[in-house]
């Protein structure tokens, strides 16, 4: 079995700050994803990547950048943290064929002061 590791688990930032979240997977999966989890809003896709150096915008990409420099890693940058923002960011991966399972990391909880 494999694992998805997200760092840090907790991230506290200041308004306007650029913040980076990291994700590593050892499943050797092709596709990786960043989701934002907000209560009552479900999981919303921010960015995904189907291979190394590929980036695709999701529905919630505004205000974020992403980077996939290696197959095993996918990072997400909050370009300018919004005051009082609180959310959980979930990284996931899957094989790039239909109906394959998504595997999730344990999340990074962001708080902006």
């Amino acid at each position, binding site marked *: 079995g494999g694992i998805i590791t997200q760092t840090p688990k907790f991230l506290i930032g200041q308004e306007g700050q650029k913040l980076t979240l990291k994700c590593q997977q050892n499943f050797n999966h092709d596709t990786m*994803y960043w989701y934002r989890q907000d209560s*009552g809003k*479900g*999981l919303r*896709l921010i960015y995904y990547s189907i291979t190394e150096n590929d980036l695709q915008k999701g529905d919630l990409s505004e205000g974020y950048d992403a980077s996939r420099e290696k197959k095993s890693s996918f990072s997400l940058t909050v370009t300018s943290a919004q005051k009082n923002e609180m959310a959980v960011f979930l990284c996931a991966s899957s094989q790039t064929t*239909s109906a394959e399972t*998504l*595997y*999730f990391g*344990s999340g990074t909880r962001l708080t902006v002061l």
Partner: protein
Amino acid sequence: GDSVTQKEGLVTLTEGLPVMLNCTYQTIYSNAFLFWYVHYLNESPRLLLKSSTDNKRTEHQGFHATLHKSSSSFHLQKSSAQLSDSALYYCALSGNTGYQNFYFGKGTSLTVIP
């Protein structure tokens, strides 16, 4: 476009009663797959069930769901709720696009009480 609707945001049940969480969907793909993911507190979300063929029931860990293409539904059911079933449940859709793109519902938070 593709979408998933979970009409219940919060469900509270007494232990031992049956569970039914609703999931309906819209998709342009005839071979779309439906999933139920469960997110327990302080854990990672994980797959609970994945749809099979039309009108076929799939089961795992006491839960079951049947894909009904005629009504675009994939409701999650369990005959008897347990306290340990308390969690956030997401229904998700994946179209057959050649690469994986998932659409999630807003989630249903299930609380089972003694």
